[in-house]
C-alpha cells in the first residue's frame, strides 16, 4: 500500500519535471505566489552561478521545475543598537549596532552607526545579536508533527539508490516544528531525505518563513544537495532486500552508481556540444535554416531523474551531504570522491570526526555534528563531547553543529554552548564570535548560500536574531527574529508568533505556553 503511494508520487514528479510549463502545472495557490515573485527575480540565479568562482561554462543542468516563490515580507528600516554583536564573520562588537534596510544588512558597527531618518530604533543594551541560525540537517516537514504513518515521508526506503526523489516533495509546510525552530532563531534550514539509502535523494533548502506552499519557503537560488549515507543504516534496511548488507556492499553500490552517472553526464555533455555545434552551423536557433537540408538537429538523450541528480553532483551543481559516523568510512568516501571527481561538502553526524579532523580540514570538508549524542548504535559509540572543539582546532576546519531533530533545532545555540564548554575544559578556548559560526556562517558555506546569508555583513539578507543574553547560555531566549528584515517572531508579541493550521482549534491551541514555545 505504502509503496503504491510512493510510486504515484514519483510519477507525478516525473511528469511535472518533464513538462515545460512549470507554472501552469502548479496549483492556483502557487501561481498566485509565483506571479508576485517576479519582483524577486534577481534572487533567482541558476544554482551554478552561486558558486564561489565563476565557472568557465554555465551549467546546463540547472533546470528548476519547482522554482522558489519565496518573497520577503515587508521590512522596516531598523537600527539595533547597544548590543553585543556576533557578526558570524568572526567579529564580536561590544556596544554594537546593526542596521536593517530594505530587507538587507545595511551596516554593522559600533555605537556611532547612525540611524537613518525615521528608522525604528531598538535599544538592545544587554542583549546579544547574531545572524539567523542555520540548520544544515533537518527533517522538518518530511517527518513532521504529528508523527504518524500518514505523515512519515522522510525515507523512500524502497531501493538503496533513490537519488531521483526530492525532499521538497515530502515537505509539509504546516509542520509546527518550523514555528518552534523559528522561536529558536532558525532562519534557514536544509531538509534532507532520511538515511536508509545509499543515495537518499535531493535536499531542499528553505527559508524558515511559513507559507501555504513549499515553493513559498524555498531559499531563492540555493543549490540543491544530494543526501548519501554510510554505514549501518543502508545495511540494516537492505540486508534482507537484496543488499547491500555490508559496508563493502555500500561502497560497491555508490561506485556503480557513480559510473553510471558519469556515463550519463558524458552523454548529455556530448549532446550539448553537438547542439552547440549544430546551432552555430545552422545559425543559432534559426529554425528556418533547418529546412535547408543541412545536418539534423541532434536529439536530446532521455532524462533520467536519478542519474540527473547524480550527474549534477559530479559536475558540482549539487552539494554532497554524506551521513557518515565512522572515521575510517569518511576517509574512504574521500578517496571515492576523488575517484569520480566530485566533492563532499559535509559529513553529517561525524561522531568520529575528531579522529580525522586533520584529514577533513586538509580536504576542505565540513563536519556537522551533535554536541553529545552517542551510543544509540554501535557506529555512534565513540562519540566524545569534545568532538566539535577538536574539529575546530584544526587550521582551515569547518565545524557545524546540526540538529537532525525537531527539538534539537530549537536550541542549536545550547548545543554549541555545551561543545564550547567541553572545549574549554580541555584547554581549547573558543570565543563566542567563533562558536557562532558553527551554527550560522559555516552551514551557510557548506550549503553554498553564504554569499546571501549566514553573517551580519552589509548587503546580505537581514536574517537577524536578538537574544536576551549570551546565546550560549542555557537561559538564553530569542526576543526577536528577523528574516529578510521582516520581524517574523517576537517573544513579547503573540501577533508575531506563527500558528500552523494543524494547531489552531485544538486543545491548547498549539500555544499554551505563548510566543511559540
Amino acid at each position, binding site marked *: 500500500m505504502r509503496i503504491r503511494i510512493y510510486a504515484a508520487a514519483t510519477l507525478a514528479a516525473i511528469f511535472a519535471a518533464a513538462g515545460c510549463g512549470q507554472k501552469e502545472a502548479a496549483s492556483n495557490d502557487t501561481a498566485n505566489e509565483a506571479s508576485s515573485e517576479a519582483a524577486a527575480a534577481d534572487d533567482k540565479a541558476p544554482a551554478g552561478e552561486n558558486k564561489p568562482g565563476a565557472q568557465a561554462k554555465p551549467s546546463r543542468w540547472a533546470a528548476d521545475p519547482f522554482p522558489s516563490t519565496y518573497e520577503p515580507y515587508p521590512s522596516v528600516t531598523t537600527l539595533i543598537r547597544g548590543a553585543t554583536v556576533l557578526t558570524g564573520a568572526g567579529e564580536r562588537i561590544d556596544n554594537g549596532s546593526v542596521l536593517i534596510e530594505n530587507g538587507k544588512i545595511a551596516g554593522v558597527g559600533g555605537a556611532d552607526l547612525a540611524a537613518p531618518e525615521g528608522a525604528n530604533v531598538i535599544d538592545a543594551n544587554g542583549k546579544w545579536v547574531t545572524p539567523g541560525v542555520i540548520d544544515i540537517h533537518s527533517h522538518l516537514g518530511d517527518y513532521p508533527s504529528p508523527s504518524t504513518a500518514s505523515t512519515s515521508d522522510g525515507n523512500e526506503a524502497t531501493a538503496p539508490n533513490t537519488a531521483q526523489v526530492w525532499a521538497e516533495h515530502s515537505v509539509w509546510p504546516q509542520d509546527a516544528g518550523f514555528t518552534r525552530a523559528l522561536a529558536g532563531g532558525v532562519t534557514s534550514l536544509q531538509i534532507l531525505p532520511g538515511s536508509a539509502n545509499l543515495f537518499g535523494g535531493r535536499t531542499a533548502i528553505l527559508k524558515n518563513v511559513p507559507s501555504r506552499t513549499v515553493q513559498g519557503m524555498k531559499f531563492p537560488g540555493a543549490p540543491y544537495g544530494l543526501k548519501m549515507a554510510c554505514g549501518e543504516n543502508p545495511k540494516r534496511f537492505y540486508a534482507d532486500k537484496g543488499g547491500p548488507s555490508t559496508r563493502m556492499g555500500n561502497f560497491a553500490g555508490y561506485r556503480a552508481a557513480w559510473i553510471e552517472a558519469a556515463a550519463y553526464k558524458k552523454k548529455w555533455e556530448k549532446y550539448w556540444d553537438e547542439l552547440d555545434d549544430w546551432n552555430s552551423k545552422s545559425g543559432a536557433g534559426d529554425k528556418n535554416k533547418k529546412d535547408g537540408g543541412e545536418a539534423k538537429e541532434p536529439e536530446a538523450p532521455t532524462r533520467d531523474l536519478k542519474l540527473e541528480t547524480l550527474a549534477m553532483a559530479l559536475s558540482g551543481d549539487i552539494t554532497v551531504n554524506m551521513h557518515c559516523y565512522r572515521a575510517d568510512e569518511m576517509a574512504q568516501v574521500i578517496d571515492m570522491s576523488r575517484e569520480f571527481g566530485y566533492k563532499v561538502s559535509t559529513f553529517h553526524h561525524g561522531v568520529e570526526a575528531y579522529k580525522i579532523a586533520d584529514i577533513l580540514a586538509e580536504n576542505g570538508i565540513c563536519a556537522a555534528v551533535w554536541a553529545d549524542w552517542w551510543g544509540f548504535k554501535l557506529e555512534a559509540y565513540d562519540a566524545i563531547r569534545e568532538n566539535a572543539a577538536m574539529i575546530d582546532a584544526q587550521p582551515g576546519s569547518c565545524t557545524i553543529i546540526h540538529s537532525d531533530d525537531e527539538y534539537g533545532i530549537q536550541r542549536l545555540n545550547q548545543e554549541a554552548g555545551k561543545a564550547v564548554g567541553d572545549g574549554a575544559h580541555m584547554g581549547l578556548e573558543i570565543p563566542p564570535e567563533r562558536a557562532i559560526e558553527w551554527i550560522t556562517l559555516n552551514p551557510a558555506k557548506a550549503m553554498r548560500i553564504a554569499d546571501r546569508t549566514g553573517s551580519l555583513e552589509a548587503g546580505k539578507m537581514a536574517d537577524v536574531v536578538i537574544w536576551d543574553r549570551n546565546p550560549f547560555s542555557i537561559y538564553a531566549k530569542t526576543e526577536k527574529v528577523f528574516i529578510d528584515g521582516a520581524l517574523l517572531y517576537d517573544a513579547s508579541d503573540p501577533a508575531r508568533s506563527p500558528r500552523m493550521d494543524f494547531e489552531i482549534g485544538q*486543545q491548547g491551541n498549539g500555544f499554551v505556553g505563548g510566543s511559540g514555545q
Partner: protein
Amino acid sequence: MRNIGRKLNRIIVALAAVSASAGAAAQAQTIAIQNARVYTMAGENAGRVDNGDVIIRDGVIAAIGQDLTAPEGATIINAEGRIVTPGVFAVWSQIGLAEIGLDEEANDASSKDGFDISAGLNAADAFNPASTLIAINRAGGVTRAVAAPEPGAKMFGGKGAIVNLSGRADSLVRADAVQSVAMGAPGLGYNGGTRLGNWAALREALDEARAYAANPSGFIMRPRADDWSISDLKALVPVAQGAQPLFVTANSVVDLRTLIKVKAQYGLNVIVLGGNEAHLIANELAAANIPVVIDPLMNLPSQFEDLAATQKNAAKLNAAGVTIAFFNPPSGSHNLRLLPQLAGNAVANGLPYDEALKALTVNPARMLGVAGRYGTLELGKAADVVIWDGDPLETSTRPIAVLIDGRVTSLKNRQTMLRDRYKDLSRGALPTAYRGAE
C-alpha cells in the same frame, strides 16, 4: 563564559590523589569540603548555605554549616566558592541494561514481541555496573538512578532497581523498587489498539494480582486466562497493594484523568511518565498526589495525545504543587548527564531555580520513597555530592568532583580516554592504538 583557571587544576590534582587512595581503601574516608555554596535541598532557598562546609564520614553527611572544624585526618577539599549539590538522581532510565540502543546483544532494556513474562522481569538480574554509560554519566554529575526495563513484548516493563553510579559491584542499592506500565500511545500496541483497552487491561491485571495475593495456591489451581504469568502476578502484588511505585506513561488529559480514578479505586502509588498535557489539570494531579516526570523540552504536537505540549509544563505543574522530575526519552540513558540541561530549560521557561534543582535531586528520591536516605545533604544521609565548576544548569558547567556514598569517584571514562588519545593527531612513534589505554 568560563574561565577554567589554575585554581581548578589544583583542585583536580588534589582530587585525583584522593580518588587513588579511595580505590585502595574499602572504607570511605573522612572528607571536608570547605568554602562552598552548598545547596542542601532541605529547607528554604533549596537549603542554600554560602561559605559552607560539608563534612563526610563513613559514607554519610556528618555535618553541614559554616566554619566547621575539619575532623583530624580528614581530606580537605577547598571548593573555592563553587556550588555543591546532592548528586543528580535520574528517576527513570535503563542504565546498566542498555549499552547500545540498536545492538540486540548489548541491549537488555526491553524484550521482543512474543515473550511471555513482563512485570516479572527483574532489572537486578542483568544490571551491569561496568557499563560505560555509568562512568560517562557519573562524570556529568549523575550519582543515582532507577534502572528499569521498559515495556517491550507486553504492557508492563518489569521490576526496576535503584542503583548508584559508582560502578562498584554493590551499586545496586534496591532491587524490585518500581514497576512500569505503558498507557496512552505506547500502550496501544498491547491492548487492541485503544486507550479503552489499555485501562481495561491494567484493571484486569491488578484484579488478577489481588486475587493471586489473596490465595496464591488456590489461584494457581483454578482455570484462568493465560495473559499473565505467575511471576508477573507476583511482581504486581506490591503494585496492586499500593506498596510499590508504578510508572505510568500517560500524556493526554483524558488518560491522566482516568489514571486519577484508577489510582483512587485501587489505592495505587503512581508516577506519571510523560505528562505532556499535565499542566492543563495540574490542580487535579496535585490534589490526587500524583508526581509527574516530564520532558520539559516537549512543545510540539508530536502525537494527538500531546497537542497541548508546552515548555511551560514544569513551571505550571510546580506552581500547582505537583512534584516534578525530568527525563528525556530521545537522549535516553546514554545522556542522563543532560538532566541539568533539561532543568535549565525549565528555568528559562518559568520554573524557579530552586525548584529545578529539587527536580534533579530530592524530588526523584521523594517519588521513589527513598528521601530518607537520598536526594538531600542532611545529617546521616548518603553523601552523594557534586562540586560543580559553575552554575550546575549552565551549558558550560561540568562537575569537578563527584562523590557517591562518601567516596570520591573517578571522572575518567571511555569518552575522556578517546579524547586524550586523539587530541594530538600528529604521527607519533607508534600508532594511536598504543596511546592512552592505561
